[in-house]
């Protein structure tokens, strides 16, 4: 055929290991070959090609030769899912803020592109300059949940990097994971070099320092991993070994090198005001799951929902000041052009100044097309008032509430403190004020659950629907019901998980009961996804063989309906002797060591166990923002304080030892926001220490 380029593999893109070294040296290293020229001809043939080209507003392009440490930040899923992730965007901005550090981004190619990349030898690439993964110094992957584990292995392999840590050397990037699922990285232990626990803002800069020094001094890889383990919050799995009892239970995970901490503490940024990121947010050129300018208004949550890993591992609560939120939003909307603003946190209506924040933003954007939204777990009339404030421009379509369980008893077990009366009153207020659709989130498969508890979900939905219908025949109610997956570092970490068959049976009970109510929609997740999630959430290091095998068998995109990977996982478990029953459907007892016991989220294991006992007897626990401390262990254990404005004027003692200046927005010795609230209400901004 005339005019055809011969179909050679792009061998220059995956050079031998010796040839890679030159690109990985420090300042002045030659730029590795870009894959763009080889990628472009493939793009018209694949789904959503714009996800692979980068070029978005606010993308940062640094010169390869001008950097001496180079990071590839990755969300191990498609661009459309991963791009909005705030963690990646925060680290991208902080790392690129250093003069001689470069950070680019990578996402997982969809199956259609991966197949073509493998045919032609095109490696995992960055979006900024389309540079190959193998050339970077650090491959830093965020794991917001467990369903990206096989994608992580696949991205390494596709990127020309050995997927096992033991097979990597100085010619390869250091592979780091962070995010919530990194609080139990054991099923990934053989594949990663280190897991970073907790808030990333400060620790990435310390890791960057270690990398720079290591490259400068030319230390070997073992010494580099040892140096990383010396950074607080960095867990290097190869320096620890699990010990098992004769019956196969874990007895302890112990360090096997001198001077390695027996307990790795998580990192916590005490003062969010020092880290007002991300400011220059990426504006995608193609559709993503959340297209908006997002501001995290506080971090942490102490509502104490017993199923919620995020609420447990991100304590204590640290608020951003209302003025800062207002400034970030105004500047961000101007800079990005986004039509929507999201006020993010685990339960945004709980910010101590949310009413003035909402009022002020409502004033700013009244009469414009800019819309405001916030996620909230509160189920009360205040939430409706707040949503009214945020929708002055008239878009009152749907409100979402999360009662999580159907019966009062079940809500006491999970410590979700909302009564049926509250919920019905809230629905009444919402529909009477013009809202047309209420979506309710529930879970089935919770500890101690009976069929009556399950049916109570349907009954609650019917009761809310009666209210909806009374206010308008077209009003709708949606019940969104998921299967519960027990997570590490929560009071439910000892609980047995329901089988997918049992979850399906329970979902059937709900559907059966609401069958006669046409106005109620039920949406459910595929309970089979919970199987993989549950196994990986609480698995130990022995599960890693199943992860590797499942990936070899072709498992990837485990969270996608389009890719049914459970049969591959079942085969992988059978071949590697991993028992799902044993890992997921077995209740643990108090004495059993857990695979994450050596990773310290701040919570006392003894307190978690007490809370688990309280759960089983349906004893509730208050939010410690408004009630006395119940000694979960986080604050004194990590030398931290809650940073909220709940008691303006009162001075909370600052017990934190601030870290050395790491290049944040200002010096380390800033007051917490509680102190600043105090400072604005008194004339003496002096803080008692």
């Amino acid at each position: 055929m005339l005019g055809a380029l011969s179909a050679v593999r792009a061998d220059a893109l995956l050079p031998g290991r010796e040839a890679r070294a030159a690109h990985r040296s420090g300042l002045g290293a030659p730029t590795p070959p870009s894959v763009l020229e080889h990628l472009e001809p493939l793009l018209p043939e694949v789904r959503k090609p714009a996800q692979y080209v980068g070029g978005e507003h606010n993308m940062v392009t640094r010169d390869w030769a001008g950097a001496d440490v180079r990071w590839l930040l990755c969300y191990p899923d498609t661009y459309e899912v991963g791009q909005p992730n705030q963690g990646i965007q925060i680290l991208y901005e902080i790392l690129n803020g250093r003069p001689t550090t470069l950070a680019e981004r990578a996402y997982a190619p969809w199956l259609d592109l991966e197949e073509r990349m493998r045919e032609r030898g095109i490696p995992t690439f960055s979006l900024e300059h389309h540079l190959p993964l193998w050339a970077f110094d650090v491959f830093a992957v965020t794991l917001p949940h467990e369903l990206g584990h096989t994608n992580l292995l696949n991205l390494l392999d596709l990127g020309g990097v050995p997927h096992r840590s033991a097979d990597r050397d100085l010619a390869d990037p250091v592979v780091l994971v962070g995010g919530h699922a990194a609080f139990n990285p054991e099923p990934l232990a053989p594949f990663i070099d280190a897991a970073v626990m907790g808030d990333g803002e400060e620790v990435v800069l310390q890791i960057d320092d270690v990398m720079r020094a290591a490259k400068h001094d030319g230390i070997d890889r073992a010494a580099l991993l040892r140096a990383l383990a010396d950074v607080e919050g960095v867990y290097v799995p190869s320096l620890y070994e699990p010990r098992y009892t004769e019956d196969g239970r874990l007895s302890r995970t112990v360090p096997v090198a001198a001077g390695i901490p027996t307990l790795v503490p998580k990192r916590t940024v005490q003062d969010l005001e020092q880290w007002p990121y991300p400011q220059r947010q990426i504006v995608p050129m193609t559709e993503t799951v959340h297209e908006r300018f997002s501001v995290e208004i506080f971090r942490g949550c102490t509502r104490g929902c017993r199923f919620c890993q995020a609420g447990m591992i991100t304590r204590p609560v640290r608020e951003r000041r209302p003025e800062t939120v207002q400034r970030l939003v105004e500047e961000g909307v101007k800079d990005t052009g986004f039509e929507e603003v999201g006020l993010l946190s685990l339960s945004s209506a709980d910010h101590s100044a949310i009413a003035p924040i909402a009022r002020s933003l409502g004033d700013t954007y009244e009469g414009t097309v800019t819309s405001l939204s916030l996620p909230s777990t509160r189920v009360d009339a205040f939430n409706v008032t707040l949503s009214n404030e945020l929708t002055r421009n008239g878009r009152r379509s749907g409100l979402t509430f999360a009662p999580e369980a159907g019966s009062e008893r079940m809500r006491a077990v999970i410590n979700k403190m909302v009564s049926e009366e509250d919920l019905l009153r809230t629905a009444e207020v919402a529909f009477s004020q013009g809202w047309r659709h209420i979506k309710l989130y529930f879970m089935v498969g919770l500890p101690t659950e009976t069929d009556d508890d399950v049916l109570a979900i349907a009954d609650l939905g019917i009761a809310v629907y009666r209210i909806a219908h009374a206010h308008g025949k077209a009003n709708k109610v949606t019940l969104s019901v998921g299967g519960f997956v027990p997570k590490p570092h929560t009071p439910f970490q000892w609980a047995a998980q329901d089988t997918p068959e049992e979850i399906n049976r329970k979902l059937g009970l709900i559907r059966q009961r609401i069958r006669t109510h046409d106005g109620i929609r039920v949406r459910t997740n595929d309970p089979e996804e919970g199987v993989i999630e549950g196994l990986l959430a609480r698995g130990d290091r022995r599960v890693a063989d199943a992860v590797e095998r499942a990936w070899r068998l072709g498992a990837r995109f485990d969270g996608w309906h389009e890719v049914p990977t459970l049969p591959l996982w079942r085969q992988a478990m059978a071949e590697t002797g991993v028992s799902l029953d044993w890992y997921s459907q077995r209740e643990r007892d108090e004495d059993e060591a857990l695979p994450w016991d050596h990773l310290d989220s701040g919570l006392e294991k003894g307190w978690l166990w007490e809370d688990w006992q309280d759960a089983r007897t349906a004893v509730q626990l208050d939010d410690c923002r408004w009630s006395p401390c119940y000694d979960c262990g986080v604050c004194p254990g990590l030398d931290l304080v809650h940073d909220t404005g709940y008691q303006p004027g009162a001075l909370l003692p600052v017990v934190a030892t601030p870290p050395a200046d790491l290049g944040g927005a200002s010096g380390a010795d800033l007051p917490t926001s509680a102190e600043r609230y105090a400072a604005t209400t008194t004339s003496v901004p002096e803080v008692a220490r």
Partner: protein
Amino acid sequence: MSARYRVRWTKEGRTRFVSARDQSSIWERAIRRADLPIAYSEGFTPHARVSFPDALPVGVASTGEYAELTFAAPIRADDALARLSATLPEGMDILTYTEVPAGAPKLASLLRATLWELVWPPVDATALTTLLEQRCDTLLAATTHEVVRHRHDGDRTLDVRPAVVSLAVATGPTPDGSGTRTTLRAVLRNDAPLIRPTDLLVALGDGEVAPPHLVRRVAQGVPQDEGLVEALTGVVETVRDDIVAEAA
């Protein structure tokens, strides 16, 4: 007082992989960044009043894209549209604009033909140019030429000949001067049935020519002998001149 403007813009480099569906939000956000007083549609979800006459296939480059923008207030067009051009993603640039007087004909009615450019990699340039020249002469001499377009919803037979206004082929140097490559330029009518460069290539290549390295929509306007009159500027773009100049 509202004001309407028409712009000609480019979709080059990475942005040629942006779909028509994503294009609207890219423009809306750029307009907000440039702080222009764009008018909004009424309704539950107001949309900025930016319209695009037709969609470009994903992957195709263009210096001949058009848009019509309606503003809610008068603007200083040169300054405002320069700001917009600067904040659009790299590869999307506004080339020229005109203010639309009341009662002006619809933009789509001015875009009656397209000048396309197909460029091959620097392989077999002389042989390829010769082959394409012969095929072009044959096609132009014919009164009909049917091709089959394969689509997921079934095959369709199309006559490409009525759409062809003019064709030109030449061998020219590659941009870096290291080799020679073949360029085909074609003016095709936009009237139904719409003939795309891919259909034209089926007619010309007949399975013997590899897909081009790059397809570009150069400009759109009113067809005339050997070219077209560009819609916004009235400048004549000829199918042959440019290509010969490039080859020289």
